[in-house]
């Protein structure tokens, strides 16, 4: 998968690139509007991660340029602006998703993967790890062909961890992924712990033991 990251903040750009390279993406990063146009003209990408505020132009202009030349790249906007209007404008200009800064890299990863699945796999949306199978389309989970019944939150949590397989995902990232902005001002992430506990128990009952690991209380990791 080829990914282009357009972000003017070098430090953030570098973080994003590092994260996605570890996810086996082919990544390229540029810091400005004109560089980005050059890359887009020269190569085809599967997905573009795009900052709106660029030093020599706007991310929105770039979006217009893409749609004008009928480029099929999926676009995820990352922006410091978080008002509904900004989001609607971004999506109207042809972006596929919109993420507000500061975001979790694991969330960005999940969104990019979801976008790529939507755009290119045409419904073949199954995440697998060992004998665990999660079907996003039918929202069903099975372990060695045994159906595991999960609540909505548990399903979302498992899908999120599967998207970020073999990586430590912080409690905060999980909380925000499941509850969105409502996770703000929550005095504890106990509920993340209890959801994980329930999920572990259910998976163990169906024979998928030892998939979820807690990492020093920082977060959780799904690995074989």
């Amino acid at each position, binding site marked *: 998968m080829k990914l282009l990251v357009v972000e003017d903040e070098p430090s953030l750009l570098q973080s994003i690139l590092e994260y996605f390279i570890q996810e086996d993406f082919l990544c390229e990063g540029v810091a400005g509007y004109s560089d980005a146009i050059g890359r887009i003209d020269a190569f085809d990408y599967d997905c573009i991660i795009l900052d709106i505020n660029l030093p020599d132009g706007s991310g929105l202009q770039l979006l217009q340029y893409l749609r004008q030349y009928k480029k099929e790249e999926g676009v995820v906007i990352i922006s410091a602006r978080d008002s509904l209007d900004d989001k609607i404008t971004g999506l109207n200009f042809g972006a596929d998703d919109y993420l507000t800064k500061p975001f979790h*890299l694991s969330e960005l990863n999940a969104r990019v993967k979801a976008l790529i699945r939507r755009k290119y796999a045409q419904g073949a949306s199954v995440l697998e790890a060992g004998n665990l199978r999660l079907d996003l389309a039918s929202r069903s989970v099975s372990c060695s062909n045994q159906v595991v019944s999960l609540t909505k939150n548990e399903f979302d949590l498992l899908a999120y961890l599967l998207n970020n397989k073999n990586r430590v995902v912080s409690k905060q990232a999980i909380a925000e992924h499941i509850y969105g902005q409502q996770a703000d001002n929550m005095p504890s992430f106990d509920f993340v712990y209890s959801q994980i506990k329930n999920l572990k128990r259910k998976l163990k009952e169906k024979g998928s033991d030892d998939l979820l690991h807690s990492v020093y209380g920082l977060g959780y990791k799904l690995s074989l």
Partner: protein
Amino acid sequence: MVWLPVVLLACSIVFYVLMRMQAHHMQEKQLLLKQENTWNAFLGKNGQIERNISGEYSIRQTDLAAINNENAVRDTAIYYAEKKKLLPFQLLSSRYQWNHQTYVLTTYVSSTEISHLIIKVFLTEICILLLLLIAIVFLNRKNSGRLWNPFFSTMQKIQEYDITRNPGFSLPAETGITEFNALNQSLTGLISNVNSAYHHQKQFVENASHEMQTPLAIIRSKLELLINQPNLTEKAAALLGDITEANDRLSQMNRTLLLLAKIENNQFPSVEAVNVSQLLLQLLHNFKDHYEAFPELNCDIAEGVMVHANLSLIEILLANLTRNAIVHNLPGGKINIKLTASGLIMENTGLPAEGNPEEMFERFRKGSHQSRTTGLGLALVKQIGNVYHYHISYQYSNGWHRVAVVFG
């Protein structure tokens, strides 16, 4: 104005006294004139005139060298038989020498007419003064009303002025009165300075919050890369955990400040009919999911309570109130929620809040030392309440916190 009747009264008294003195003086002159005329007549007729005319004069021959009260005006009274009463008179006695004889001539002047005159003049004067008093009061009222009119209209405008709502505030520069023109000019200047300071302050908060998003994003991304490093030690993990938590709180605070600034800048203009009952039930359902130890809930939620407002803002308001009730509760505590068409009452058990209840809605005011709260929740509630003119109050009694929201 209070002194005016007093001054008028004092003037009346002085006027009365002066008039009495003048009258007395006049009577004395009359008596002297009468003396002169009578004595001249007496001499002219060689003493062959009537010696005594009641109420006019009397001439007596006397041997005494001196008489009592000579040349002094005295009061007396003369009986009039036909009127059957005593009438007041003034008299003056003087000694005269004629043909080696001493005569005492006493002349009389009636006091009745003059005292009647004094009373009539005095009453007339009282009437004139009263009319004058009324006229002064009336004219003063009317004049000052017109004179102060610009002042009162300025006052009213200032009272209605609200820095958060009408930045384009101005007072009329031309009122017709120089002093008030100057006053209005100064006030307009002052208010425009205050407005611009307020505007800059708002802008500053918003810009600062905005600018902080990017460094926060960098820290967050680096932290995520760090926790994914292999051979992470437990010690390092504990440090990272603390940093992640602090950074998260910073992000939340920043986001809330940005939200506050946006509400202040009226960036949530879209308004729709919001079903509060439904929204509240949905929120409570979600919150029960979040919290393992959800306090005992006692709900009295009327169905179909609608308000006209921005959906996200109402959601934020309800969520913050509910969250507050959960967070600032006791272990094994309770929450009472009562929603009616006119308002919402949210009560929860808890320890008394530190500080003044009035200041509960200010930013960064924390009732308890909950390090994970941002101290902005109630400020947000207040701000949203201000937008829609909801009356929000807080009180604490008998171990219960109680927040009441009265819908506009």
